[in-house]
């Protein structure tokens, strides 16, 4: 029984997802990469493995990364690498970028196609020291495959170089990320190249959340404390289901589509509040997530989801080393002969910064079918009131644009 007596204005539901990836390299070769279905899944799986490594050391934090962005940066590095450096990259990625350029290009174009415009912006750039003599084929291929722009920059003045890069990022992400790099990450003597991969995402829900339904509700964070956070609420028709890990931990999942139907958010939530995310994460792969599809059924569900913003800056160096990619960080072993022959380059940092905002905005008031939402029986609830995992998936290619764990919105 309702007794609220307030005419509720129509709401909108908004998801903003700005995301970046920066690689500061002492002399690297990079740009990005990605591929069609199976190839893209290999790519995203690398990102998921990296995520696994990152959350091992940060189990209680909010972590947001871009698996697609990581695969892209590694692909760019692979293009410029030779010898054992290249071998390590190709072994870890399970594919050789050479020969796959056309497919990768196709994937990258699909992700930024007009169909997704206003939703996904992918920007790649290489900033090269004025003195570096860069191999022309490397520049050309990066431009072709990864739409990677190349600029010369004087790293001798770290502050000025840093400002230039940040200004570029800010512009490319429409102001969503305005201070990516700090001058101390640039070494005026050693830095020869900075690689930036920025992804900005502003998702409009296919079925928007009404702002008047957003209310403060209790979220029990990973630290065991309860927090009152604004949560979005919507009764609508969603695909959802549940399954268990091989270890017997049950979790529920739901798909929340964005406008245009090519991008969805998937949420995985342990069924028992006593199950930590760390029990579920090792089981997550593109294959696992594909298997959810066959287990999901469309149901009228009452969804309750925190409205939140999360920002994460991650140095990918340690996670990548843990996964066996070591030589490219070692000044005595790194081999980026395809980028330049004039000096020895190695990677000093690969920084990724991701920012995600979840809100009510969408394109339509409620939804799907008029009939299914009017009945007054009590629907099952999907309440995201404890730590959860989320994935932003580009369905036509299978690319995971973002993934993250939220321990406290």
């Amino acid at each position, binding site marked *: *029984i*309702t007794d609220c*007596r307030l005419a509720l204005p129509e709401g909108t539901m908004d998801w903003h997802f700005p995301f970046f990836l920066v690689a500061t390299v002492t002399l690297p070769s990079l740009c990005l990469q990605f591929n069609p279905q199976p190839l893209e899944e290999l790519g995203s799986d690398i990102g998921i493995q990296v995520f696994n490594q990152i959350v091992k050391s940060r189990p209680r934090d909010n972590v947001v990364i871009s698996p697609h962005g990581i695969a892209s940066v590694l692909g760019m590095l692979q293009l410029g690498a030779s010898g054992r450096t290249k071998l390590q990259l190709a072994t870890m990625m399970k594919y050789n970028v050479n020969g796959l350029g056309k497919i990768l290009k196709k994937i990258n174009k699909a992700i930024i196609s007009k169909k997704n415009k206003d939703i996904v912006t992918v920007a790649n750039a290489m900033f090269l020291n004025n003195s570096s003599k860069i191999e022309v084929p490397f520049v050309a291929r990066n431009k072709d495959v990864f739409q990677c722009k190349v600029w010369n920059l004087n790293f001798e003045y770290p502050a000025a170089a840093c400002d230039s890069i940040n200004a570029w990022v800010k512009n490319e992400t429409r102001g969503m990320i305005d201070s990516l790099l700090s001058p101390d990450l640039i070494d005026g003597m050693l830095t020869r190249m900075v690689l930036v991969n920025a992804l900005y995402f502003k998702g409009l829900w296919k079925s928007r959340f009404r702002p008047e339904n957003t209310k403060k509700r209790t979220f029990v964070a990973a630290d065991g404390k309860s927090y009152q956070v604004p949560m979005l609420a919507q009764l609508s028709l969603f695909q959802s289901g549940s399954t268990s890990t091989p270890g017997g931990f049950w979790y529920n999942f739901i798909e929340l589509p964005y406008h245009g139907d090519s991008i969805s958010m998937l949420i995985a939530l342990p069924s028992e509040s006593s199950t930590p995310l760390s029990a579920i994460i090792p089981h997550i792969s593109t294959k696992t997530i594909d298997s959810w599809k066959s287990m999901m059924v469309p149901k009228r569900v009452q969804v309750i989801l925190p409205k939140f913003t999360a920002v994460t800056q991650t140095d990918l160096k340690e996670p990548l080393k843990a996964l066996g990619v070591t030589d490219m960080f070692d000044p005595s072993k790194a081999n980026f002969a395809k980028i330049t022959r004039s000096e020895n380059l190695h990677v000093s940092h690969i920084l990724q910064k991701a920012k995600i905002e979840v809100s009510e905005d969408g394109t339509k008031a409620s939804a799907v079918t008029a009939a299914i939402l009017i009945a*007054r*029986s009590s629907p099952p609830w999907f309440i995201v009131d404890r730590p959860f995992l989320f994935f932003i998936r580009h369905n036509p290619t299978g690319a995971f644009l973002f993934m993250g764990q939220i321990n406290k919105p």
Partner: protein
Amino acid sequence: MAQRADLGPKRLKAVAILLLLGSFRSGLASCGVASQARVTGGSSAVPGQWPWQVSILFDGTHVCGGSLVSEKWVLSAAHCFPREHQKEMYEVRLGAHQLDSFTPEAEVRTVAHVLVHPSYQQEGSQGDIALLRLSSPVSFSRYIRPICLPAANASFPNGLQCTVTGWGYVASSVSLQAPRPLQQLEVPLISRETCNCLYNINVKPGEPHYIQQDMVCAGYVKGGKDACQGDSGGPLSCPVGGLWYLAGIVSWGDACGAPNRPGVYTLTSTYASWIHHQAEVQPRVVGQTQESQPDIGLCRNHLAFASAPARGRLGPILLLPLALTLGLLHAHWEL
């Protein structure tokens, strides 16, 4: 009776006589009698106030309401029983007041049969009514009693103040808080024609809603008070001649409590013969009260008001913002 005093022997006698009278009365009218038929708006009920109200659980969770119509039968809404749900997983809780509290008066039964009306197709269609046969009969008590079923020719006048009860959401997407006491709300009946007119105001293309022949509406044109998710299947109880009749069954509505979108109920009298045939429950002829007055003005007034500024008259233009401001204040007051 309201005075507090020790119960001496005389008083005990008096109480005994009253109790006898009470049972005598229930003997005459075996339905529609509540021990405390007090009606207010949008508030928690008193235990035993709506003894025919039941909670229907699926897999242990409250999904819908229902109304007890005999020792063995409960009436609810067809959409509470989607095909994919196994009937073995349903339970009916009778005599309950707070869903989260145990009370010795409450009884639980499993469901022996679910009879969904054959004309029901989907949410919003005709025939949103279902009969449940309990696994074993219940004994009536102060907390468990049937409501009267109106006969096929019953007609409840427009504007009649009826009461809808249930454990549903208290606002869109907001569930009732623990301990979840039964909620009651007084709502006036609105004719089907007027209701269709209201549902055509600001209608969204592609989302037409139509009030079918077997439906009736109840609620407020300005919105705010209404049934909501979780109330489905529950009773719209109307008082006539000292008895309560199940005039409607909570069925659907566009959102909850939105302006010009009153709650839509299945008109029980349409199915009097079906119920009689299936459950052998005797519908009761509803005594005539007052003549039903046309209520189309509820909708037409809106249309006339909306078109006033278009005539270019200064008065209404100036008055309109004032009226809106007052309306908002009013809304806050009632929160």
